[in-house]
């Protein structure tokens, strides 16, 4: 396969707080290729947003620190870049949009000024050309009367329109990667549908890679090609969407899929994941999901499982796929629809 556009290797971002060390991201590895859409899924506090800020080098230091791992963008290790060089990448080559557009827009500047600022800075255009670019971008994201609305302030836009403005701003410099952190979570479902459709179109048009961070499995199934499922700072499963949704190999992924009500299925009872997500401070040894896992074995509470290859381009951090799994556990998992893969070694 071609050289990945972005390569994250064993990334660890910790926060040193008074209560202890919060291992927000604890060993994340993945490759992102040109034009790919990768979903990062997980519940609140699983480290999915922190991972994005780590890539962008926006982690507040202290208390945060990237303690290990590398992020390569087009072959360059981002950690080794000077602040100046990083600024040329951030917002220019790698752009980011956030969940709540109102908090990421400056309320006292018109949106034209805000888009033009980025364009002037990164693309070295003069003011007039930059404003022209701003208006053009607003048209690209289908804001009605874009040429006039350039001079409006953020509060004059609705939530969905503000998210369009954010997208326009992010794409104004033609980035090769767009990181979208819960881009539709604050929006109503009919507006969410509009934004998803827009992002799909623009991704094709701009031929960029997208990292979509979300907790909504529906949005992932809709937009992504590949998915990393995160739990307590760790990537527990990594596969394409078909495998993830139809043949999950990690009990957490399996549990998530069973606990959500389906629109077109009649079910008497949901099967919840029992218990609570663990606190990220001083996590116990072993698999972080073990206390909630219906298939946990002795080994699971003792040692952190490595990634097991469970199919082509499909890995799961779970001992069910190792030689530790006994017949009894495998049978129970299979009965529940969590088929253990043909056993293969650790990757």
């Amino acid at each position: 396969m071609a050289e990945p556009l972005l390569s994250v290797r064993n990334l660890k971002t910790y926060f040193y707080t008074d209560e202890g060390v919060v291992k927000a991201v604890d060993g994340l590895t993945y490759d992102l290729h040109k034009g790919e859409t990768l979903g990062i899924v997980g519940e609140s506090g699983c480290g999915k947003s922190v991972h994005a800020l780590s890539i962008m080098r926006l982690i507040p230091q202290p208390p945060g620190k990237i303690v290990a791992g590398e992020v390569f963008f087009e072959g360059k290790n981002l950690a080794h870049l000077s602040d100046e060089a990083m600024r040329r990448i951030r917002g220019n080559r790698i752009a980011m949009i956030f969940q709540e557009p109102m908090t990421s827009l400056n309320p006292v500047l018109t949106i034209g000024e805000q888009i033009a600022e980025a364009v002037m800075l990164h693309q070295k255009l003069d003011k007039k050309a930059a404003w022209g670019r701003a208006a053009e971008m607003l048209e690209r994201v289908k804001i009605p009367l874009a040429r006039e609305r350039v001079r409006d302030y953020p509060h004059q836009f609705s939530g969905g329109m503000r998210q369009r403005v954010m997208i326009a701003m992010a794409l104004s410099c033609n980035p090769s990667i767009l990181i979208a952190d819960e881009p539709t979570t604050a929006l109503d479902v009919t507006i969410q549908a509009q934004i998803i459709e827009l992002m799909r179109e623009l991704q094709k048009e701009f031929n960029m890679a997208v990292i979509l961070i979300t907790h909504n499995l529906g949005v992932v199934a809709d937009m992504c090609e590949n998915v990393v499922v995160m739990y307590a700072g760790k990537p527990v499963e990594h596969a394409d969407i078909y495998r993830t949704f139809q043949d999950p190999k990690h009990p957490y992924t399996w549990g998530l899929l069973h606990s959500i009500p389906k629109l077109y299925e009649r079910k008497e009872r949901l099967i919840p994941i029992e218990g609570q997500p663990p606190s990220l401070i001083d996590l116990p040894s072993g698999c972080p999901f073990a206390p909630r896992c219906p298939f946990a074995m002795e080994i699971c509470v003792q040692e952190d499982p490595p990634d097991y290859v469970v199919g082509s381009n499909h890995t799961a951090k779970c001992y069910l796929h190792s030689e530790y799994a006994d017949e009894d556990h495998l049978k129970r998992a299979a009965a529940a629809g969590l088929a253990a893969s043909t056993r293969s070694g650790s990757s």
Partner: protein
Amino acid sequence: MAVANDDLILDVRNLYKYFPITKGFIFQKQVGAVKAVDGISFNIRRGETLGLVGESGCGKTTTGRVILRLMEPTSGEASFEGRDIFKLKKEELRLLRRNMQIIFQDPYSSLNPRMTVGDIIGEPLEIHNLARGKEKMRRVQELLEIVGLSPYHANRYPHEFSGGQRQRIGIARALAVNPKLIICDEPVSALDVSIQAQVLNLLEELQKEFGLTYLFIAHDLSVVKHISDRIAVMYLGRLVEVADADQLFDNPQHPYTEALLSAVPIPDPAVRRERIILPGDVPSPVNPPAGCRFHTRCLYAQESCRVDDPELVDYWGNGHFVACPILPFRHQRSRAAVLKPAAR
């Protein structure tokens, strides 16, 4: 509706709630109104769950609060077991609230951080003179067990609990007075996916055990579909469709319902659906469009829709109410073919 009156626990008729918009500081004068709830009628049968869905700002939360009289209505009637809620005096209202309780969306802001869990759940018992002292503590512990917490949690403070556990505390508080009707206002929206299912299951178990009736307000259609017997769809202060849950999902008749259902992303990559993308945003409730409120975004709008204000009509006599005079003629079309997952 074709239901005997004593089967109805709540009957709401022509409910309006306007919030005045005023101008000026000392001499305030009203210059307009936010028409949050703009003339809705519905009823809830004993023991059923009525889901109320709609997007933000459509007035669903206001509806719940007005029914409980946490806000006074602008006009309208709502009878609970035959008595008009809006005509009750203070003391009568207190008695009514023993029968009607609410569970709020945000388990972080709806529990007093300075009170212990025992005091929070015990407070309604004292207010309604149901139990005091030791008897109260015994009841609190019992309630904690009912909602899946432990009796020793009574001495703890809300901040010691996670979101899902706090929601359980809110449920225990609502249950304390043995209510008949509970208004659940987005009870799982603030919770993580893996926790939502726990709380939904709990609500269903409690309903069976105590014969509860729910008005379940939410914006998540999958959740509403799962828990509701009947569903009412709200748009801009009005109800546009009311039907049995299955009926509504299999055969939606209002163009808004249809678009809303098609917009929900399905967590299955094998399902490819025809998605109806509604143009534009929801208009402001200060100045809602004349005629049908939905006509500005409707894909089937006709000239008459700009003028005629449609009412909820049970066109087929089967309890499937639609506020759209255009679509009923397309009754037999099968949306199911489009909306149901295609064969793999």
